[in-house]
């Protein structure tokens, strides 16, 4: 089996062309990153607002928990049946899948953002007020930077989930690495399926490592120094399994 997978992956013909590995890799990355970016644009401001003002907290906690329970396959089918007929051209495939991926990515990022702001040391907030900063300034100069580790953790968790779920999107006609899984399944070409799976796993790891690097540069060193000694949870770890719930006891 390993031989056949290796043979499939090293076959040059599988890498080129409109349904080659490179093209599918780019498509997959495209779907995933677009979804995460849009989700972040929605979830981060919302999470910051909720964490800063404390309004809507209960709603968000429960929403984030319940959203994790929604089966993506079912949601995908509903989206395709509902949205597909409304569009023509390729958007009819991309819109439903994109919607599902964005909906999937919002809860982890939202959780990370609001938990991050909430978890800011009251002393830091106090000091900021003492220095004369008003609400929004406190948010921008103190709370946001302090919340960055948890926000980044939420983004990484969301990205992993989206990359994994974008595989299923191939069931509804989309491209991406999931194509190798679905096409391999349809004709029982197990080397193709296994190669697709391996590629998805490698892509997820690679993207996570890049994000870990981003985290290292973006998060203030004053913060990371604190984390390394105080908690066993190491936010600088190269790979984290998607488990944002561990960060708050809700």
């Amino acid at each position, binding site marked *: 089996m390993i031989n056949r997978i290796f043979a499939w992956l090293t076959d040059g013909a599988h890498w080129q062309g409109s349904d080659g590995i490179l093209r599918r890799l780019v498509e997959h990355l495209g779907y995933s990153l677009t979804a995460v970016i849009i989700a972040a644009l929605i979830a981060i401001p919302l999470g910051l607002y909720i964490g800063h003002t404390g309004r809507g907290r209960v709603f968000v906690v429960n929403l984030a928990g319940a959203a994790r329970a929604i089966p993506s396959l079912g949601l995908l089918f509903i989206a*395709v049946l509902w949205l*597909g007929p409304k569009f023509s051209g390729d958007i009819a495939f991309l819109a439903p899948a994109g919607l599902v991926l964005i909906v999937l990515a919002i809860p982890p990022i939202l959780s990370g953002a609001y938990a991050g702001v909430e978890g800011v040391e009251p002393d830091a907030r106090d000091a900021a007020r003492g220095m004369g900063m008003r609400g929004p300034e406190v948010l921008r100069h103190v709370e946001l930077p302090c919340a960055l580790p948890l926000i980044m953790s939420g983004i990484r968790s969301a990205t992993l989930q989206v990359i994994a779920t974008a595989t299923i999107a191939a069931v509804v*006609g989309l491209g991406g690495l999931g194509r190798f899984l679905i096409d391999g399944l349809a*004709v029982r070409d197990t080397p193709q399926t296994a190669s697709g799976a391996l590629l998805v796993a490698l892509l997820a790891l690679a993207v996570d490592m890049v994000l870990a690097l981003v985290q290292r540069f973006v998060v203030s060193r004053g913060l990371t120094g604190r984390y390394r000694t105080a908690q066993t949870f190491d936010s600088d770890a190269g790979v984290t399994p998607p488990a944002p719930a561990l960060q708050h006891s809700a």
Partner: protein
Amino acid sequence: MKRTRIALAVTAAAALFGVAACGSGSSDPLAAGGSAGKASSGSIVVGSANFPESALLAEIYAGALSAKGVKVDKKLNIGSRETYIPALKDGSIDLIPEYTGVLDQYFNKNAKATTSDDVYAELKAAVPATLTVLNKSAAEDKDSVVVTQKTAAKYGLKSIGDLAPQAKNLTLGGPPEWKTRPTGVPGLKRVYNLDFKTFRPLDAGGPLSVQALKNGQVDAVNLFTTDPSIADNGFVILDDPKSLFAAQNVVPLITKSKVTPTISAALDAISAKLDTATLGQLVKEVVVDKKDPAVVAKEFLAKNNLG
């Protein structure tokens, strides 16, 4: 004191799952594998492919066999032929509704027959030793290449061969397995010399394919001839003069060791009563009227005194 509490908690959790597992009674998930082919005599596992017509036919078979006292287990919506034939061979299922032409081409790489009786004869010879096919029915459901009326008018299309000059600018849609199947993309190239710009893997003649054709994501798509959406949307079925899609009569494919006189009599009776018009009507009730395949099957059997 603490230990008792923990033991209590663990027992409660274990009991919950135990109840769940045992509470499924006759549909015990563990026995879902058909007991590795060693099921008690007179019991049979009916499978189906992953499209509504196949599920409907499987329900019809299952209903008729139940009525004759055979114990039936259903495993519907398994997948494509490449997935369920191995399941048939390893004993996960025993019986599945099939179509003579494509099945013949699946087992026989040099399949040549195109007419109904020829295909059936060729199929009987090509089926592997452990399997067999019973009587075929008059009902046919073929693969077809379908275009919208607008496309047909634009390029003057009447038969599949007419696509040849335009194919390099057109997109073809079909189930993922069409990319490599002899009746799929390679077959269209071999018989009609069609080289499409792209092939878009969709589903087996389901809503994705219909939608893709309607909304212009593909210019031509593979649909099944009994599909009610062809008539509903005014789609045009392109003629197949070179018989790439040979005769496709509905036929039961069954493990030889499972055939008993009761079973073959029941299934042959169904095949005798099934014709293309009836099949089309039944499929319409399932897909358009959203009726349950089991209910539609029961009504068909009742109407024909088979259940």
